[in-house]
């Protein structure tokens, strides 16, 4: 379970997050709503240990990680608002990218990647990511996040860059992938359609969680 304990983030005089306590158990989809500038992305970065909180702590399965990069590699699947693919690499190479960080890459990784992309509706896994449509790019990004069946998926505005129709499809794919893997899913978004699919929605306002 991902847990944030009394987490505060201060930047100078500004309090971005104020004493946030949040738990995301396995298999549960939690949405964080809130207006722009309310601290949603900061919250997600703290949850993914990309940002050290000024106060409080983040634990996974009850312990604090001493190796955030290693923890993310083994535990977290990240989905970004604007996909963050490497445009010069193929869709498949993007999906396999996190495996390149590991000391060893399993032999059937490419096969699994192709199968995952097919499941996401990407028919041409060897096509360069840079020339895919925005909807296809986000599908590739989701495939990258869930290929290793991570127990925790963090998604930052995954539908914000897409039209309503494509956004709806992407939301369904993301939630289905999380549920299929039994993963904890934490999504920050102000897309009502996406938030409506969540098991629980919390609202962040002025750095405080309602």
């Amino acid at each position, binding site marked *: 379970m991902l847990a944030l304990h009394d987490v505060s983030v201060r930047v100078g005089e500004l309090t971005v997050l104020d004493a946030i306590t949040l738990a995301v158990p396995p298999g549960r989809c939690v949405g964080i709503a809130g207006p722009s500038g309310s601290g949603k992305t900061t919250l997600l*970065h703290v949850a993914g240990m990309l940002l050290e909180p000024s106060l409080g702590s983040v634990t996974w399965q009850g312990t604090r990680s001493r190796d955030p990069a290693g923890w993310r590699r083994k535990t*977290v699947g990240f989905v970004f608002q604007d996909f963050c693919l490497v445009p*010069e*690499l193929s869709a498949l*190479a993007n999906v396999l990218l996190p495996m390149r*960080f590991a000391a060893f890459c399993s032999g059937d990784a490419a096969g699994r990647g192709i199968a995952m992309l097919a499941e996401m509706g990407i028919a041409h896994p060897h096509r360069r990511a840079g020339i895919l449509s925005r909807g296809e790019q986000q599908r590739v990004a989701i495939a*990258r996040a869930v290929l290793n069946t991570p127990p925790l998926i963090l998604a930052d505005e995954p539908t914000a860059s897409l039209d309503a129709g494509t956004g709806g499809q992407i939301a369904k794919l993301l939630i289905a992938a999380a549920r299929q893997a039994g993963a904890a899913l934490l999504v920050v978004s102000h897309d009502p359609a996406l938030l409506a699919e969540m098991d629980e929605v919390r609202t962040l306002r002025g750095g405080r969680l309602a």
Partner: protein
Amino acid sequence: MNPFPMVLADWRAMRGTAVWCIVLVALAVAIGVAVGAQERALRQASARASDDFALLIGAPGSQTSLVLASVYLQVEALPLIDGANLNRLAADKRVAAVAPIAFGDVVNGYPVIGTTANFVTRWGRLAPSEGRVFEAEDEAVLGSDVRLPIGAGITPAHGAAGAPGKADPDEARHRHEGVVYKVVGRLPPTGTPWDRAILVPVETVWETHGLGNGHARDPAPLGLPFDAESIPGVPAIVVKPVGVADAYALRGQYRQGGTMALFPAEVLVSLYRNLGDVRAVLVLASALNDGLLFLSVLLLVVVLIGLRRRRYAVLRALGAPAVYVLLVVWLGTTALLAAGCLVGLALGWAGSAAAGALVAARTGLAVAAAPGADEALLVGVLVLVGGAMALVPAWLATRAPISESLRS
């Protein structure tokens, strides 16, 4: 851990910049490589050209002029020494062989050198590749690069050699009318300026200038000894001593009494020392040039990393350890510098070969600029230095805060 897909992706993303970086580094490195290779080739070629000139004797004056005129046929008006020295040297037990070198005439831009048949064959080391060596006063032997046919009749003119194969307008006005040499042979290439010379009996050179033929009778057998009452002077005498001690003794003896004796090698060593100083300055300038260019490239890489910090932050967010990002940036930068260095090595050698061809065209000295370990070592050092310097932008790439970079 496999950083290569990301390295390749980075190269593709900045291929225009990468190509320019490689070109600039290659040009900077090529200058250093070319200077080193050319200086070495020039030194080897000039040393090879003086191999058959163990000891030179001439009139007191500039040692360098004597060497340049005798070995490299950069014909200058040298004062003459008494021709009787030839007989004296020929009779000396310390001397294995001796020959006069008389110049000052020209045919079609090729210098005409008066000497003996023995020296034409370089003391028996060379055999004509065509025809034979001269056996009579009106015969001539060609160096390998002289474009005249065997059997041709040639008339010398007084004056300095011009462009080989092209008669100077002055040549026609200063022709020794009535003197005709018949070309009887051609020598194999020696890679020296003598390949462009026309070699004739010294007796004919003397006679052409109204000095007799050096012998009591006319005609007389060619070559030493010269038994005329008064033996004409010559600009230079080349001596092959029996041994090293003999060479030093002869040099000491002929450094007095109106003659100057020297080992061309010692003059070359002095020239090489100056050449070496020039080379050191050029290599230092080139190294500084390389260093500045490397710094510029690295600065460019730092700027590019700044622009692409979000890309590397995504890798970190996806779980890439800092060392992975460090490897991606370091390998990418080092490979660019290394590629530039290798292309520069090839360009430098090619440039040196081209410069060697130019020197050969101007002087006849076969400057064979070949790839050498020195330049390879220089490039190896540059790659190592570049690799070490590339650690700086690589390390900077790992220090950028992830959350902040993701928002950039």
